[in-house]
């Protein structure tokens, strides 16, 4: 089962918190350039699944492969893998103790030894792309939620990741800011970035995804193309979930 086009793959992934089994065996593969949306009821294990992919949570059982390298075997440096796996959080988690620009160049200069001038130049280009160039020297406390989230996306992109994980990137935003963030993400998907996104924005998921995973009770209950999932879901749980959110 080797395929050069697979960026991330999980094999029978399990995660328990104490006695609570949150992931009950998830096997899937994300291909290069693919945009995959994860939908499902709250508490179903979507975030936990995403966080297992870059080992922010350590799986209780099963494997995670990044480009067919087992990253759960504790052999390679986890930090190294994480440099190639960008992640964007619901709560932005930008670093408040440094400027917008420093947020972006921190990891490239520290971990990839990119010269400061070059890192700055690249960062400015990215910030310009998301409309934050004029905020480069501000501290994050001066930014709106939408701006913070765009910064968080740029911070991850600055490491040139091979895949981006988004965990409900717009759930903490005021409604008027959802669009600006979604359009940045859409931009990314168009540029060929491999994206895995947990979202409650069903319209967005349907529009940008190549594939949709419905995760519920710690398993992938159903998966398929966006049109199939949203127009003729097969699993009763999917039908019930979609009837509640659509």
């Amino acid at each position, binding site marked *: 089962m080797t395929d050069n086009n697979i960026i991330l793959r999980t094999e029978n992934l399990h995660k328990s918190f104490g006695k609570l089994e949150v992931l009950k065996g998830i096997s899937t593969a994300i291909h290069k350039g693919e945009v995959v949306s994860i939908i499902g009821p709250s508490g179903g294990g979507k975030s936990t699944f995403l*966080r297992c992919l*870059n080992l*922010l949570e350590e799986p209780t059982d099963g494997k995670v492969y990044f480009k067919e390298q087992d990253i759960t075997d504790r052999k390679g440096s986890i*930090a*190294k*893998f*994480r*440099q*190639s*796996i*960008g*992640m964007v*959080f619901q*709560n932005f*988690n*930008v*670093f*408040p*103790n*440094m400027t917008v620009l420093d947020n972006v160049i*921190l*990891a490239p200069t*520290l*971990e990839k030894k990119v010269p400061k001038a070059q890192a700055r130049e690249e960062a400015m280009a990215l910030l310009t792309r998301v409309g934050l160039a004029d905020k480069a020297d501000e501290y994050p*406390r001066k930014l709106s939620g939408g701006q913070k989230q765009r910064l*968080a996306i740029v*911070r*991850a992109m*600055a*490491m040139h990741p091979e895949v981006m994980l988004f965990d409900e990137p717009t759930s903490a935003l005021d409604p008027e800011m959802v669009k600006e963030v979604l359009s940045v993400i859409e931009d990314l998907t168009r540029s060929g970035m491999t994206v895995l996104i947990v979202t409650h924005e069903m319209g967005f998921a349907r529009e940008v995804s190549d594939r949709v995973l419905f995760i519920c009770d710690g398993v992938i209950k159903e998966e398929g193309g966006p049109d199939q999932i949203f127009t003729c879901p097969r699993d009763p749980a999917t039908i019930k979930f979609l009837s509640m959110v659509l």
Partner: protein
Amino acid sequence: MDKIIGLLEKYFPMYLEGLWGTLWLSAVTVVLGTVLGMFVALLRMGKVKVFKWIADAYIEVLRGTPTLLQLYFFWIGLPKLLPFLSLSDTACILVAMTVNASAYISEIIRAGIGAVDRGQWEAARSIGLSETHVMTHVILPQAVKNILPALCNEFISTIKGTSLASVFFVGELMTAYKTVASATFLQMQSLLIAGVIYFTITFTLSKLLKLLERRLTVSD
């Protein structure tokens, strides 16, 4: 009152010297205690079970026994342990005070680090920072805001705590009082002077601390 003025005229330099000793002893204690406390805090938060256990025991013992007892312990024990160094009383007391302070300061540091949002750790790790860089560039700079005011508090209580060192006549403010009192037999008056000096220093420092705290919250 006359007697106090008379005392001051004659012995003020001695009190000043004592105050200097107190401030010096406290400052060095807090600075060294912070370095040691940082180390203990990191052990405690680290992954190695044995180190964690040792750090826990260290803190519990130091917090569960009287400071004065610890001062005696080092005063008696250190010269026996390291006879070739021929340590002075002051050096022994300084080590004891530092070790004592490190237990409290390690808790301050741990709490300060613990108060940093979990999301900051996750974000810092997710962009591929090494664990060291996560700590030095993201967590500690934010934790300092929580730690600094508490450390200043620790400095203030250390100033009072160093008075215990007078038991060993190491030349701080209470030692000055003892010297003056035994030379003049004006027990109460000479004590009052020391008390006023202690209070002036700690009161001023805690007001400054309030200012610092306000500064730190404004910049949030």
